[in-house]
């Protein structure tokens, strides 16, 4: 470990360190699960976004900002923009079909035994997911960076 790193932001416990490493993918998968089931069961973009941000924040606590940035590969602010863009993108397909702005559009088909329901609502929910994730990570990361 680099000695110059301030102690407050990285908790140098082996357990947290290792746990964060394994929990991050698990939590992310869980967040996607929550996101996709959200229309019928408890879950949805907002909750899933919170879970995903929780995953990254935990990792950030254990490994520091630089390492989190590395593993994320994208700026949190870009995620924010992506979320807003998806949210906006979900508004227009309805208009192309001659319906009112934001009217949900559904594309259902069967894939093997499963009924797949794709919709602008799902796109919108994914937008919410990224917007929440981007917001929290932007705030947390800039706070931690200002500490350093």
């Amino acid at each position, binding site marked *: 470990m680099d000695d110059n790193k301030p102690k407050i932001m990285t908790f140098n416990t082996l357990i947290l360190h290792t746990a964060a490493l394994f929990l991050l993918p698990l939590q992310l998968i869980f967040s996607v699960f929550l996101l996709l089931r959200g229309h*019928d069961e408890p879950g949805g973009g907002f909750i899933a976004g*919170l879970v995903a941000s929780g995953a990254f924040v935990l990792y950030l606590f254990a490994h520091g900002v630089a390492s989190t940035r590395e593993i994320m590969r994208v700026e949190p602010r870009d995620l924010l923009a992506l979320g807003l863009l998806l949210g906006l993108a979900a508004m227009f397909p309805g208009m192309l079909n001659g319906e009112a702005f934001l009217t949900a559009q559904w594309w259902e088909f069967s894939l093997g035994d499963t009924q797949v*329901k794709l919709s602008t*609502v799902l796109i*919108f929910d994914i937008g919410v997911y990224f917007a929440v994730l981007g917001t929290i990570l932007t705030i*947390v990361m800039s706070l931690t960076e200002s500490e350093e």
Partner: protein
Amino acid sequence: MLFAVLSGFILAMFTPLLQPVAQNKTGWILAILPLSLTLYFASFVPAVSQGEVIYQEWQWLPGMDINLSFMLDGLSLLFALLISFIGVFIFIYAGSYLQGHKSTARFFVIMLAFMASMLGLVLSDNLISLFVFWELTSITSYLLIGFDHEDESARRSALQGLFVTVGGGLALMAGLIMLATVGGSYQLSEILTASDSVLESSLAVGMIICILLGTFTKSAQFPFHFWLPNAMAAPTPVSAYLHSATMVKAGIYLMARLNPAFTEHALWTVSLSLFGAITMFVGAYLAYSATDIKKVLAYSTVMALGTLTMLLGIGTEYALIAFTCFLLAHSLYKAALFMLAGAIDHEIGTKDLTLMGGLRSKMPRTAVITAIAALSLAGMPPLFGFIAKEAMFEAVIGNDSYQALILILALAAAMLVMAIAAVVAIKPFYGELRSTPKKPHEAPLAMLIGPAILAVLSLMFGLLPWVPQNSILSATVNAVSVTPASFSLALWHGFNLPLLLSVIALIGGILLFVFWQKTRPAIGHLTTQASRFGPEAGYFSMMNGITYIASWQTRLLQNGKLGNYMIVMILTTVILVGYTLLSQYGLNVYLNVEGIAFYEFFIVLLMLLATIYAISTRSRLGAVASMGVLGFTVALVFIHFSAPDLGITQVLVETLTVILLVLVLFKLPGFSRYSSRYEVIRDASVAVLMGVLMTLLTLAAIDVQFFETISGFFVESSYPLAKGRNIVNVILVDFRALDTLGEIFVLAIAALGVFSMLKLRAEEK
């Protein structure tokens, strides 16, 4: 037509991608769009000249009678043609003028958006969409004027233009809404046929005043004329476009468009003709007094706008014919002259007319084209400007009210214009060659092709006046006037009064030109004296006043103490909501404790204990933790009453809140008591008040049911309508998706706010 309007916006989106590829050819490539628009609109000319009016409509917000509906009649076609046709040359010219500028792409993006907004404005048949496009032109022109945003004066001019036009825009919106209310529709085409009910209504006077405030500010009528000359802080292609076919003509367009509805109203005709005449004279005088070539041209635009307004106000058949001719003539020569002035500035490095001379040998082509365009400005035969000016004199003579005053102003303005045309055409090119900041040489083809074609058109339309007349001008006059008109334009009308006036104007103009150099000091002195009391001084003192009040109330209300903000917000809520609650419902406290299980009491007790600990503890970490406990017990309540989504969200939010608090905890100074005893009591009582209010409100909400709750609808239709069984999620992403969209934008703004605050602080360090 929707696509014609939107194409500019769409192309604007892709321009930043085009710029690196096309480099110096961007202007030529982008000019294809206005060119194809010109051809598209030209294809309507045969139909429209037969008196046909073309309507196209797309639903936008049908529930509010707001649609993207377009109307193409003579007036809008003339404007659309001017906007797109002049646009072609502006783009070509700008590509060359801005060569090597670091943000050319940004320029073209705004320029395309500006052109598209202007097209939307003149084609709209719906008052609201017209207003939207109207404001878009204000915003895009603000960005264009302030294009060199590193230059402070450019920023100031841009802001001035924005304040004046958007301020007027507010009045205009009020006026348009009144118009729609009285006229019974937001469709212009329907309102214009119902002009009787508009005129008879009690709102007519207010409506006219509001609409005129909007159009006068936009079209730089006296006393709002000052923003326009300052707007030449923009790069020259912008000025050329702004002054000839767009922006300032928007106000003229709207007045012409509404003229059939209001032309019977005395207030409309009198204020248009008087303000127009005054603007015409003031503009001409200021043009004569200026020495900066762009400023001369800018003030001559003010003159032209005044003339157009005045002609609309006079409102006779002849006046409207003069109006259309003048409109066309002015657009052609003004675009040409501005581009030429920019070319001169670009090649010799100064805009000051007193420093120019003898450029004829260095810039022969520029000299010839300038001469032709300036002849049209002066209103000399055989240019189209001559026909327009003759028609103007004819209209002024035929006017009944204030005839003498307007005639004198018109004649004086004509003399001054004659003089400035001569100044612009002769001063830079003849006489001895002077030393200039740059070594003069001929302007490139891209900068001359536009002016040349426009100048030749001025000449051609003058020689063959029936070409524009039959193709478009007759239809325009019919669109502006109430009664159908038929007329034929000609260069030669025989010896008559207008011709005599032209000759007088010519002689006066020559005299004024001869003394141009000598009158400089005197006129400069006079102008400085006058400007101290002019409208621009008023604008500045108003702006200072606004800044003063803003900083005063900020010191008072926004003093940076978080506690004060909270107290103000909470007390306001308590007083307003509490008053309503007590007066509507009374103080009915009815507690029904039956059926509450033991563990429910336990949860509440836990909440209470957590709260009490949070406010009484002296350890900050303890406070954070007990707030966490409170949050989790709330989540328990949610889950208990079967709202799993809320419960999960609450848990997650609590977790993240604690994390965030932990993050900032390290930054806070040690926990010590800052508050005096008085402050503690004050804060406590405010908190208790809020708590009591919320309790009473909740009890009242359980007790009285004012309306049938909407949740029944959501439960029933969640699956059939939205194919989802999770009602909370369905509400969030489907039934109330617009709200959610707004909320994620709020989230984004908050995140960026935190980011920029921390980032800026880091940079300060």
